[in-house]
C-alpha cells in the first residue's frame, strides 16, 4: 500500500508538471500580453519597456526556468491586469467555485443515486423510461440553455430565486442546479446500469431466497457492489464540476475561478491562467487519488500491493 501511495503521488506530481508546462507553452504561443495591457495609443517603446519589465524579452527557456522555480513554492507571479499576486486572486475566487461545485455535487448525488437505484429496480417500466429520458435531456442539453431556462422560470417567472451574483444560500440554488444537471444525469444513468448488472447476479437471488427484505437486499448487498463504477464517475464528475463551471459562472454572474481564468485568457494574463489551471488540475488529481483510495474501502478484493 505504501509503495502504491508513493508511486501514485509521484504520478500526480508528474501530471501537474505536465499540465503546467503545457499551459506555459500554449500561453506563450497565443499572443503578446503587452499589446493587450497597454492602451491602444501606447508607443512602440512603451510596448518594449513593458515586455522587458515582464521578462517577456528573455529566451523562452529562461522564462520557463523562472516559472518552474517560483511555481514550486506556489508563486505564480503577479496578475498583469489586476496587479495582485495571481495565487491570491485564485484563492479569492476558489471559494466561490468550491461552494458552487460542492452544492452542485451534493444535489446531483442526493437526487441521482436514489433515482438510479429506483430505475434499476423498476427497470423497463414507465418510471424507468421517464426518468431515463429526463436524464438523457440533462446530459445532452447545453449548460447554457439549462441556466437560461431556470432563470426565466424560477428567477423571472415565479420570482422565487435570485438570478445572479453571490450572497445568500438562495443565490446558490439555480447555479448549483444548472451545474449539477449533467453530473446528475450521468450519475443516475450509471447507477442504474451498475445496479442492473449486480441485481441479476446469483448472490442477489440467494439473498432473496433467504427471505431477506427487498430493501435490505438492494441496500446492503446490491448497492455496495454497484458502488465502484458509481464512485469513479462521481469522482470524475466532481473534478469536472470544478473545472467546468465556466459557463455556469458566466450565466449566473458567479465570481469563481472559471470566470477568472476565462478573463485571464482573453487578456493574456499568464500568471492568472497558470495559477487557475494549476489549482483546478491539482484538485482533479487530488480527487482521483482519493477515489482510488476509496476503492479499497468499498471492495476488499482491491489491494494496492
Amino acid at each position, binding site marked *: 500500500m505504501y509503495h502504491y501511495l508513493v508511486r501514485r503521488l509521484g504520478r500526480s506530481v508528474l501530471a501537474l508538471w505536465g499540465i503546467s508546462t503545457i499551459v506555459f507553452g500554449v500561453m506563450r504561443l*497565443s*499572443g*503578446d500580453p503587452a*499589446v*493587450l495591457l*497597454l*492602451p*491602444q*495609443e*501606447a*508607443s512602440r517603446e*512603451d*510596448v518594449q*519597456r*513593458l515586455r522587458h519589465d515582464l521578462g517577456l524579452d528573455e529566451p523562452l527557456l529562461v522564462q520557463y526556468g523562472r516559472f518552474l522555480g517560483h511555481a514550486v513554492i506556489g508563486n505564480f507571479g503577479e496578475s498583469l*491586469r*489586476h*496587479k495582485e499576486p495571481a495565487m491570491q*486572486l485564485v484563492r*479569492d*475566487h476558489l471559494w*466561490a467555485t468550491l461552494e458552487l461545485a460542492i452544492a452542485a455535487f451534493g444535489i446531483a448525488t442526493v437526487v441521482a443515486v436514489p433515482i438510479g437505484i429506483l430505475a434499476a429496480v423498476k427497470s423497463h417500466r414507465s418510471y424507468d423510461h421517464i426518468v431515463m429520458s429526463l436524464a438523457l435531456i440533462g446530459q445532452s442539453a447545453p449548460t447554457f440553455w439549462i*441556466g*437560461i431556462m431556470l*432563470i*426565466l422560470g424560477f*428567477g*423571472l417567472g415565479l*420570482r422565487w430565486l*435570485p*438570478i*445572479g*451574483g*453571490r450572497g445568500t444560500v438562495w443565490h446558490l440554488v439555480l447555479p448549483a442546479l444548472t451545474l449539477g444537471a449533467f453530473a446528475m444525469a450521468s450519475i443516475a444513468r450509471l447507477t442504474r446500469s451498475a445496479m442492473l448488472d449486480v441485481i441479476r447476479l446469483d448472490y442477489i437471488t440467494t439473498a432473496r431466497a433467504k427471505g431477506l427484505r427487498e430493501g435490505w437486499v438492494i441496500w446492503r448487498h446490491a448497492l455496495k457492489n454497484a458502488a465502484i463504477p458509481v464512485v469513479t464517475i462521481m469522482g470524475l464528475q466532481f473534478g469536472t464540476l470544478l473545472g467546468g463551471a465556466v459557463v455556469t459562472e*458566466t*450565466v*449566473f*454572474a458567479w*465570481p469563481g475561478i472559471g*470566470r*477568472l481564468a476565462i478573463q485571464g485568457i*482573453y*487578456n*493574456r494574463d499568464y500568471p492568472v491562467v497558470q495559477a487557475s489551471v494549476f489549482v483546478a488540475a491539482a484538485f482533479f488529481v487530488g480527487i482521483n487519488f482519493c477515489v482510488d483510495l476509496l476503492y479499497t474501502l468499498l471492495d476488499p478484493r482491491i489491494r494496492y500491493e
Partner: protein
Amino acid sequence: MLRSCTRRWARPVTWLCAVVLVCSVPGWAAARDLVIGQGTDVSHLDPHYSTSASDVNVFFNLYDNLVLRDEQLNLTPGLATSWKLMDEKTWQFKLREGVVFHNGDPCTADDVKFSLERAIADNPRTSVYAALNTIERVEILDPLTVNLVTKSPDPLLPTRLSYYGGMIVPKQYFEKVGREGFRKAPVGTGSIKFVEWKKDERLVFEANKRYWRSPLPYDKIIYKPYPETAARIAALLAGEVDFITAVPPDQVEVIDKSGTARVEGALYAGFFSYTFNVKIPPLDNKLVRQAMHYALDRQAIVKKLWRGRGVVPNDAYPNVDKIGYDAKKSPFEFNPKKAKELLAQAGYKGEEIKLESAVGYLSNDKQLTETVAAMLQDVGINAKVQLLEYSVRAQKVRQKTIEGLLLGDPTSTLLDPDGMFWRLMQPGGLIDYWRHPEWDRLMGEARILQDQQKRDEHYKKAASIFLDEVPVLIVLQPEKTFALKKELQWKARSDEIVVVYDIKPVQ
C-alpha cells in the same frame, strides 16, 4: 375595561398606521439603493489608466472633471466654474470654491496640476495620454486659478478636459498611500464614495453627502457584473437591478413590453465601419473601395440587424459632431449597378478580399460582417469573412497587420472631427494606412485654428476628400441602448457615459 383595552392598543395601532402610511407613499419616499448591471466588472479604479467603457462609466461618478457635459453633451462647469482663452496657447480655469474630496481634503489648484500632469505622463504612457497630450504645462496662479499652456493652439481643450483622462484626484492622499493604496481605496470629489469592491461580485459606493451639486437620492450605488446578456435583462425585469447597460437591439421589444422597465437609447457618437488596408491590392485601387461603398444596402442593415435603431450615415463625420458635419447631405447611396461599373473600370479580377471581425466585441459584429460580405458578393466581389478572437484583433490593430478590412467602432471622443478619424488616422495613429497630403494638411491645420468658421470650412473640405477616397468603409451609426426601471428617469447620451447624478427617481 373596554377603555383600558382601547388605550392599550391605541399606541401600537397608531404606529402601525404611520408605518403603513409612510410605506404606501408612491414612488421613492425613502432613500434606497441603486443597482447597476454592467456586462463586465471594472478592471480597477485608477482614472488615468483605463479607457474601457465599464471602467469609465464608474470614473465619471467617482471623480469630477474641470468641465462636465450635460445630457445634450454641451459643456457645463464642473470643478471649474469658468474658463477663458488668455492667449493663443493659454487657457485659464477658475476653480469652484468649497469642493472637498471624499476624505475631507479641499480640492485646489495643487490637485488639478497633479492630476493633469499625471494624465500626460509619458514614462510609461498613461491610457489617457493621447487624449490630453496637447497640454504642455500646468501653472498655478493661486489656490483657485490654474493656467493650462498647450504645445500649440488648442481650441478643443475644455472639451478634452470633459472626457476621460480629465478626472481630478487628491494629490496629498495619493502621495500618502501610493498608486497601489489609491487603487485599493480611491478618493475623488464625485457623487459616489467608495465603500468596497469584491472582484467579479459587486462594487459598492455610498452617496457622497457633501457632493457640491446635491447628494444623490440613494443610500448605496452598487455596480454588479452580469456577463450574460439574457441574465442581465432577466435581472432587470425581476427587479434585482435597477439599470442595465448594453441591451442588444433584438431585446428592446421584450423589455419595453414588460411593463416594469423601458429602454433608453441614443445614437452612438461614432460609426461601425471597416478600415481598409489600402496598401494591399486590389484595395489600393480607389475605384474598388468606391465600388464597395456603393455595394452596401445600409438601410436594410439598420432595419433588419438593428431593428431600425440606428441611421444610415451621410457624411464622413457622425451627426453628433458639433462642427464639420453637414446635415444637408443625403444618406449614403446603395447602387449595385454603379458598384459593378466601378469594379469593371478598376479591372477587378475577383481577387479575394478579407473582412476581419472579432466576435462579441461589438454588438452584432459577426452578423454585420457576414451580411456585408454577402452584399459585396452580390456585386461580384470575392469577399471572405475571417472571425478573430478579441486579443488577436487587438494584436492586429497594434501591429497594423489588417489583411483586408477590419471592423471597428471609431468614436468621436470630442464630438469634433479632431477626436475621431484624425485621432486614429493621423501619421502614426492607430489605423494609419491611408495618406493624402491635402487631407493631412486640412485636418492638421483645423485642429489649431481658433476661428470656428474656418475650422468648419477646413473640415468640410477634408470630408469631400475622405468620401471620394473611401479609406474607411462607413456602414452605420447605431443606437446604443440601455434599460432601466419605470420608476427612474434618465436620458441616454451619445457618449455612452452613465452619469448616476442624472438617474433620478420619478417624483
